[in-house]
């Protein structure tokens, strides 16, 4: 019985944290629009609590922007139009996923560039090792035996 109570309670607690900071009064009647609004909100940074999305944040501005996104969608905006509306006012920093453009090229390609350069260098290193075709001098049996004796001592 105790286990059931604990698991049900945990379920409530876990699902409530996923629900974010959206209050019932904010939610749109149309579930499709509401779902779009939630998805868009998850990708917009709360500029007050900067590591949270506006979907998660309890800040006043986050709530205002959540409502604003819903208004834009209700007015007929596409997802991209609603996002562009916010970005026009606050800039690219409001996007939690940095856009792929010239200014952010270094951010996106940098790690691959470094990994690529390192890989190239390593590949080069390996290639040169296996290309080592220096001839090993041929020794007679007697010389071979002497050689082995000396080497074993090293």
């Amino acid at each position: 019985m105790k286990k059931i109570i604990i698991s049900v309670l945990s379920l409530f607690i876990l699902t409530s944290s996923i629900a974010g900071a959206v209050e019932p009064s904010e939610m749109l009647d149309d579930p499709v629009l509401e779902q779009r609004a939630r998805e868009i909100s998850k990708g917009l940074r709360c500029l007050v609590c900067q590591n949270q999305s506006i979907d998660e944040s309890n800040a006043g501005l986050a709530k205002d922007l959540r409502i604003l996104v819903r208004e834009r969608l209700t007015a007929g905006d596409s997802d991209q139009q609603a996002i562009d509306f916010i970005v026009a006012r606050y800039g690219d920093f409001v996007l939690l996923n940095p856009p792929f453009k010239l200014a952010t090229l270094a951010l996106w390609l940098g790690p691959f560039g470094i990994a690529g350069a390192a890989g190239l260098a390593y590949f080069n290193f390996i290639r040169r090792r296996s290309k080592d075709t220096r001839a090993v001098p041929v020794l007679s049996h007697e010389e071979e035996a002497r050689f082995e004796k000396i080497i074993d001592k090293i």
Partner: protein
Amino acid sequence: MNKEAATDLLNPESTEQPETKNGISRIYALPLIGFAFIAVAFAIGLTLNPRDIPSVLIGEKVPEFNLPAVQGRTLGLSDTDLKGEVSLVNVFASWCTACRAEHPLLMNLAKQNIVPVHGLNYKDKPDDAQQWLDSLGDPYTRTGADIDGRVAIDWGVYGVPETFIVDKEGRIAYKQIGAITQKILDEKILPFIRKLQDRSDQ
């Protein structure tokens, strides 16, 4: 040890690393150079304040808006009021302690008659705003009561206080995030205002 390794010991000129005149191949420098670039970028980044988000509206015309005056004041604030002269638009609220801190500076500035200072009252209750200005003093030529904060969103406001310099053509020329200090006023804001004022007179 094997014969190849022993051969290498006997032939000091041969090495297993790719040979160049100067020794180790320059290609090994690539990851190091890449790392150096990134390290410099991060070092600079660490000195920057993430709360200072530069405005994307610099150079843009002020957003269209038309707000009634704060309760107890007569002159409201709209975008058309911001054309024809250089002006300051200060976003403030009675519930904002930093606004209270910068208030004496705004009073002082208003007295000097260098530039009109307009107030955008952000998400305030009419009684509170009126009371705040009555008791502390009113530096504002015009005020706009942005009760729901929507006009502020159009200005890209994300906190209070914020202050904008608007040029003669009604474009946002500069945004100050956080309270104005005497230093910021003397070193950044006033010189910029004078520059904008001079420019327009030519």
